[in-house]
Structures are given as C-alpha cells and as structure tokens.
C-alpha cells in the first residue's frame, strides 16, 4: 500500500518535471504574426470557456510567456490509419504536425484537431476530420478519479474481510456511512427485494460522480479537470442507466409503455398517442439525468471562474480597483466552492437515486392489481 502511494507520488512528480521541461519561451518572431496579438484584451467569456472545455494538453500555469503544461497523447484514426503523437508537437496551437493542427478559430470548433492545407496553417475545410480518440484532459481526469476510487475501495474491501464482525476502523469507518446510505436510502426503498443485483452499479455510479465532482472543485493538478461538467461524460453515465433499464425491464414495464392498461382505446388506435408519449418518456428520462448533472457542475465552475475574473476585469480599469475587489471576490469564490461541495454530493445522490428509481420501476412486480381494469 505504501509503495503504491510512493510510486504514485513519484509518477506525479515525474510528470510535473516532464511538464516543466515542456515550457518554452514565447515562440520566435516568425510565428508571432501567426499568433494572437500580444496585448490581448482580457476576454472573460473566452477565459471561462477555455477552462470548461476539454483540451489536448493540461495547462497548469503561465508565467509571463512561458506556459507550464503537460502534453497529452494525441490518438487519431484517419481513414483507417492510426496516428499517435504527443500534443507538444502542436506548440500550443501555433504549429501543425503531420498535416494536423488544433483549430484556433472560436467559431469553427476551437480545440478540435483538423487537417491543414499542406504548406500553410489554414484549415482544410473540405477534408474529413479524423476520428479523435486522444487521451485528452477529461480522459486523464477520469483516470485520476478511477485511481482514487481504486486506492480508496480496495483497502476498504480488504478491511471488511479482515474486520468481519468487529467495528470498522480508518478509511472503512469513513466510507461505511456513505455505502450504507446508498444501500438503505437509495437502493432498497426504490428497488425493493432484488436491490442487491444493482448495488455494484449504483455504488460505482454514486462514488464516481461524487469523487469526480469533488476533484473538479480542487483547483490544482491533479484536480480541476471538469470531468462531470463535460456533457459527453454525463451522456455515457446516462446511457448506462438507459441500457440497464431497458435490458432488465420486465414485460409489465413494456406493457405499460406500449399498451397502458386502463387507458381508453381511442388513445392507442388508430393514432397511438399515449404510447408515443410514453416512448419519448423513455428517452427523456436519461436525457434529463445527463443535462442535470452537466449543467449543475458546469454552472458551479463557471460561477467560480466568473468571480475570479471579476478581479481581472476591475484591474483592467484601474489596478487599485483590482486590489480592492480581490478580498470580496475571493470570499465569494470560497462561499460558492462550499456550496459546490454540497452540490457535488446532492447531484451524485440525485443521479443515483433516479437511476435506482428507474430500475425499480422497470422490475416492479405489479401483482394482480390491474385484473379489474382488463375487463
């Protein structure tokens, strides 16, 4: 256990070293004209968006003109060919490599990898975009959450085996209230007798979302990757719920959707109004799960970034104003971050609870309560 932690520390340290080896002074005059103008106005909207979206390198800090970033691997599938290289070859979006570059135009898919017209730095708008399977910042964030989950739960699992019958100690006693909360307040009331089958998924879902939310609030590396604030990630989580619900649903669930009992016949034939509404409901429920988590977490990050950028907006007007607004801005950011801690837990709870509710509804055994309505 200790050696694992030490090797993780070593890995992080070496990554940071690697990162500082990638710092370069501002590029030479030739690429200066291609780069943005030196005295760029501080644009709040752009800064906030740049901190929310995914990117191909992990930007840690900028000191004057040196960028400290961790370059992440770029993996592309272009017309069947696999292309792998480090995103350091892009020189922070100023250079092209092997015919690809990172799009910088804000209106045309900024941050995506596109092909260039050979010999220039312009996007080849007629070429097909390669399939991008890169290890981007969000993917590294998912890996970090995954490593934290493993680091936390393997010791807890072995502690349960060791301490069977005794009081929990250490990490086990920290997590036991949460695990029992998921079992007794989320799974068992919603699903009923067969809740044990769904416990692994619900526990993983809850802790993945909870830890990802928390790690996203932490502003320094390895935190701050905005994993659950990325709609693709929440879409995958919602798709898990959707597929599981569809596969484990029993006959009475599908009956209630396509042939609801107790509903007048003219709503089902010739125009199946109610079945259509119920069908859209099947898709809307996971969709809402996705948007709820994405919007809550993204909004929290945007608010904190907005408060911090208040300082820079005021400083642009007058340096003294900048200093004056800093304590207020920092206090508000702290307050919002505390709120974000609460939101992190609540969103994980709501996502897991609604998933458990959908599982429960799909496997509900109605008994014979509809016998009279079928007459």
């Amino acid at each position, binding site marked *: 256990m200790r050696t694992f932690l030490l090797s993780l520390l070593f890995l992080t340290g070496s990554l940071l070293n690697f990162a500082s080896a990638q710092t370069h002074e501002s590029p030479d005059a030739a690429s200066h004209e291609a780069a943005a103008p030196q005295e760029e106005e501080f644009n709040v*909207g752009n800064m906030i*968006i740049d901190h929310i979206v995914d990117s191909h390198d992990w930007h840690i800090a900028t000191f004057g003109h040196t960028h400290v970033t961790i370059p992440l691997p770029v993996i592309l599938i272009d017309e069947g060919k696999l292309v792998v290289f480090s995103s350091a070859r892009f020189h922070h979006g100023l250079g092209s490599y092997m015919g690809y570059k990172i799009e910088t135009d804000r209106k045309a898919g900024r941050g995506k990898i596109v092909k260039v017209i050979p010999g220039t730095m312009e996007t080849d708008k007629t070429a097909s975009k390669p399939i991008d399977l890169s290890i981007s910042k969000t993917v590294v964030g998912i890996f970090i959450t995954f490593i934290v989950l493993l680091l936390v739960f393997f010791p807890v699992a072995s502690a349960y085996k060791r301490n069977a019958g005794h009081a929990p100690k250490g990490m086990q006693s920290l997590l036991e209230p949460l695990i029992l909360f998921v079992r007794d*307040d989320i799974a068992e009331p919603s699903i009923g007798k067969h809740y044990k089958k769904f416990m692994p998924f619900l526990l993983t879902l809850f802790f993945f979302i909870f830890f990802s939310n928390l790690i996203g609030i932490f502003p320094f590396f390895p935190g701050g990757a905005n994993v659950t604030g990325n709609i693709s990630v929440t879409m995958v989580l919602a798709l898990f719920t959707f597929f599981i619900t569809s596969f484990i649903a029993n006959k009475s669930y599908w009956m209630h959707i396509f042939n609801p009992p107790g509903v007048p016949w003219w709503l089902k034939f010739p125009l199946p109004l109610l079945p259509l509404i119920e069908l859209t409901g099947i898709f809307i429920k996971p969709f*809402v799960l996705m*948007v*709820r988590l*994405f*919007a*809550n977490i993204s*909004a929290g990050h945007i608010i904190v970034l907005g408060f911090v950028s208040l300082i820079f907006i005021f400083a642009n007007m007058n340096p003294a104003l900048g200093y004056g607004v800093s304590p207020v801005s920092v206090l508000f950011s702290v307050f919002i971050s505390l709120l974000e801690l609460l939101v992190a837990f*609540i*969103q994980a*709870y*709501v996502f897991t*609870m609604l998933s458990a509710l959908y599982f429960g509804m799909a496997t509900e055994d109605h008994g014979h309560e509809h016998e009279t309505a079928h007459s």
Partner: protein
Amino acid sequence: MSLLSTLLQVASDLAPVAKMGAALGAGIASIGAGIGIGNIGRGALESMARQPESTGDIRSNMIVAAALIEGVAFFAIVVCFLVVFI
C-alpha cells in the same frame, strides 16, 4: 425617416437582441426556480413544524424535489448559453 433608418439598422443584425433575449430567459428561469423551490421549502418547513420527528425524512425528500426542479431551471440556462455562444 431617421427613425426608419435606425429601425433598419436594428433589424439588420439581431445578434445583440438574441443575447438580450438569452439574458432575459435566464432571469425568468431563475424566477421560476425560485418560486418552485420556495414552495417546496414552505411545504417542508410546515410539515416539519407539524411533526418534528419526521424531520429527517422530510429533509431528504425536500432536497430531492429541489434538485429535480433545479434540473428544469438548468435546462433553461443551457438553452440561453447556447443562444449566446453558438
């Protein structure tokens, strides 16, 4: 005449109007969320006052309902965001 040309100028590029619409939409969504969650809070506090020993149950249900309503408000926020940035 000058009024007409001013109107023409406004009508030719409606992007700022779209942004104003987005801002108004976000404000109205906040009003809706505020009213809805306020109702939930009122119901929850009244019930807790009637029966203090079910405070825990009521609190959990209140938070769940509030999260669901916030989800709807966030829909509106996301739409307004899309209007501004896309």
